[in-house]
């Protein structure tokens, strides 16, 4: 590997545009946090609330669930990534798309499906103890492990197989070579994915409410929904923010040094491991995973759609497809567009400033949608009334909530672009902007597409912020699912839920193609 220039001293200061982009993003995330702090300050008993055994139980439960799901997601995500990219597992292409699909299943649908299949009186057989911790763990792991799988796969695709071969040549077995040469290369990607998983678990309400597992976020929702007490809710929210900041600090330690490598180096395709007799068992295992994560929910939804007497309103569905797709596309595009300058700031201009921006930009991910939505309700209704109750503000909410997905994808892509390419461009007389257009963005393509797709998928299933911010009279697919499910009309709820899955699958298909292609056309 080429010796690196002193990257810390690159340029005196980040250009103003980058710093402004960073500040803008940070401000957007600080908004809900500040709002929470103000509301928490209104609680008369904030102090005693924080140390009450009940709240401590929530914190403990949240951390326990978060760590368990993160650990399982890491194991599954890295394992499946390795199977797909480094072995001769059959049906690779199909499995690759299938393995990411669970991402598009809303967690409340996934959890309901698990209960419907394995709960008491379930359609399949009853698993004791499915309700509670293990049920929540299963539902959340099944829908979040792709957050690890996706970045690890793209890291593996660009990891230098020479290192692996070198390790083997030095006498390491394949297993040791994997541990010593491959894992360190995928570590930043895995850590970034694990962070998303952990924060997602912090913010999730769907799975924990269906599985009746008390986390902080469930506590927050309950304060709003049944106790009508927004200041206690805010106190819990502040605790959640604290947990988030701790998680971010933890991830920073785990990430280790980012492995940067020249985009120009022409690493060959890594040799693939022959699974031998394990080929079909491995295939079956991945299929089982896909079935549990996607097949099961789709099956249960279909069953509901057929069994129930209620019907979905066709016109409403058509309208909701348009609204959902438009909003999610808008959020995806806005998120990656903002993610480009922020990534450049974070990756190319490391400083205390950029680290703070990165932390703040990521913190929003752990906030429950309801908290983000209420903060935006407050600020928009008071200070931005022309924007309030428009589609625009929904897009803003999505971007605030899901920006880290875009940032992570673009950032890990940018890390792999040698900054010397940008210098080369500038020395050839091209301006920074020109260069971004002709070199950086084309080379970031994989990251941009991955980031946009992640945001799109997550936005498609977003409910709490959508409900509060969507202009009156419109619906998204997620709100239609909610309308049906909240009223027990599962047959009405199933078609929009199935549409969310179907549209998302359509998005994932090209995503995998783009990923597999070489950097040029």
């Amino acid at each position, binding site marked *: 590997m080429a010796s690196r220039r002193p990257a810390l001293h690159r340029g005196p200061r980040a250009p103003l545009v980058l710093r402004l982009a960073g500040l803008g993003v940070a401000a957007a995330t600080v908004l809900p946090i500040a709002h929470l702090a103000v509301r928490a300050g209104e609680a008369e008993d904030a102090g005693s609330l924080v140390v009450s055994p*009940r709240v401590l139980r929530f914190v403990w439960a949240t951390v326990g669930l978060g760590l368990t799901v993160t650990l399982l997601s890491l194991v599954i995500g890295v394992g499946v990534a390795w199977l797909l990219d480094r072995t001769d597992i059959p049906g690779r292409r199909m499995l690759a798309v299938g393995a990411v699909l669970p991402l598009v299943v809303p967690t409340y649908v996934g959890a309901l499906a698990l209960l419907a299949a394995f*709960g*008491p*009186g379930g359609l399949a057989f009853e698993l004791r103890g499915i309700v509670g911790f293990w049920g929540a763990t299963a539902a959340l792991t099944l829908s979040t492990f792709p957050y690890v799988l996706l970045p690890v796969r793209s890291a593996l695709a660009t990891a230098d197989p020479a290192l692996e071969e070198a390790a083997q040549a030095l006498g390491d077995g394949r297993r040791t070579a994997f541990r010593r040469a491959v894992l360190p290369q995928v570590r930043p990607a895995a850590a970034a994915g694990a962070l998303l998983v952990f924060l997602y678990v912090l913010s999730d309400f769907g799975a924990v*409410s*269906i599985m*009746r597992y008390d986390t902080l976020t469930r506590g927050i929702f309950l304060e*709003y*929904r*049944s*106790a*009508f*007490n*927004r200041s206690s809710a805010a106190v819990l929210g502040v605790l959640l923010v604290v947990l988030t900041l701790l998680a971010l600090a933890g991830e920073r330690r785990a990430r280790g040094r980012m492995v940067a490598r020249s985009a120009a180096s022409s690493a060959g395709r890594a040799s693939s491991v022959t699974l031998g007799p394990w080929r079909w068992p491995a295939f079956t295992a991945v299929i089982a995973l896909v079935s549990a994560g996607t097949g099961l929910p789709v099956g249960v939804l279909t069953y509901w759609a057929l069994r*129930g*007497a*209620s019907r979905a309103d066709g016109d409403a569905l058509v309208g909701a497809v348009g609204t959902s*797709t*438009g*909003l999610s*596309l*808008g959020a*995806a*595009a*806005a998120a990656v567009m903002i993610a480009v300058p922020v990534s450049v700031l974070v990756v190319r201009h490391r400083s205390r400033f950029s680290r703070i921006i990165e932390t703040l930009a990521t913190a929003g991910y752990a906030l429950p949608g*309801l908290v983000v939505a*209420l903060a935006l*309700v*407050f600020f928009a*209704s008071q200070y931005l*009334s*022309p*924007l*309030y*109750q*428009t*589609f*625009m503000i929904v*897009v803003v909410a999505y971007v605030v909530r899901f920006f880290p997905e875009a940032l992570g994808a673009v950032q890990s892509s940018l890390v792999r672009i040698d900054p010397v390419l940008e210098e080369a461009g500038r020395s050839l007389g091209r301006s920074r902007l020109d260069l971004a257009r002709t070199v950086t963005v084309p080379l970031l*393509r994989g990251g941009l*597409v991955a980031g946009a797709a992640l945001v799109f998928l997550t936005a498609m299933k977003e409910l*709490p912020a959508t*409900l*509060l911010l*969507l*202009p*009156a*009279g*419109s619906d998204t697919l997620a*709100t239609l699912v909610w*309308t*049906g499910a*909240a*009223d*027990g*009309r*599962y*047959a009405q709820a199933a078609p929009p839920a199935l549409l969310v899955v179907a549209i998302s699958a359509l998005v994932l298909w090209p995503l995998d193609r*783009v990923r597999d292609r070489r950097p040029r*056309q």
Partner: protein
Amino acid sequence: MLKIFRAVVAGVILAGSLGWAGCSRGGDGLVIYSGRNKNLVGPLLDKFERDTGIDIQVKYSDTGEALATLLEEGQSTNADVFLSQDAGALGILAERGRLVRLPQDLLDLVDERFRHGDGRWVGVTGRARVIAYNTDILDVSEVPDSALDVVDPKWKGKVGFPPTNASFIAFVASLREQFGHERARAFLQGLKDNDAKRYDNNLLTLDAIANGEVQLGLVNHYYLHAELKERGDAPVANHYPGQEPGQEGTFVNVSGLGILKGTDRSEDADRFVRYLLGPEAQAFFRDETAEYPMRKGVDALSELPALDQLRTVDIQLSSIGDDLKAAVQLIKDVGLS
């Protein structure tokens, strides 16, 4: 790839223009924040529009979230009417002085028990807290006559209830009011000790009863009718507890509405409230959602015990606010939520 990128850019522009197009405020008709499900009230609201020619815009969400939204928006809210799933949320708005006093003739349509003491909100429909049971497993004669009896050891692990549901909380508040704090606590502790299963809401509780996960549960009466509508063969039925003298009585909570202060459409809002309390709308609720009509003189479904025949809990819904807080605290203290 460039195509994808262009499509994404086009998406942004599309979303942007949609956003601006959607930002028509002011002349946008009567704005209603509904904590009640669109399935329950949507058809009726459409009919209101057709019948009166008044444009309405409805924002559906959960009652608690709608309340939180109204609180965040404060004076700059766009909402004219708040349609709430339960009395507690209306009580909080009334307490904060956010609701206008409704005209007396309107209030007089509804029994005093089911409206705000100072006329800030009025009940539209009523729902009774009942014991629902699985008819495949239990005969009606086996079902306890009092909700308080479900803590009997013979029901250990066989009872379901939604501890975080607003109606359940109101029910606990009513127990507290009638029998005192300690008795209410003992009841909750009994539920806990008896391994009563907790569900997220009435509906999931009823589902659990229907599939035999538990044998009986504490729910609102009308979910049974929704469940039967979706699944005609569901083996569930309702039992109205607490009818004997000295027992707790059947607790009836209301869904209701109030008009927000600062509305620039008070006339339309007034017509809306009148419409919902009109005989036609009240009959709609009775037939579609199986709730109790609140307008005096409109009868409930014949298969339900009539409201005036029912021994109901005597509790002032209008001043339930503090009681609710205490009830929530009690439920938390016992460790049920």
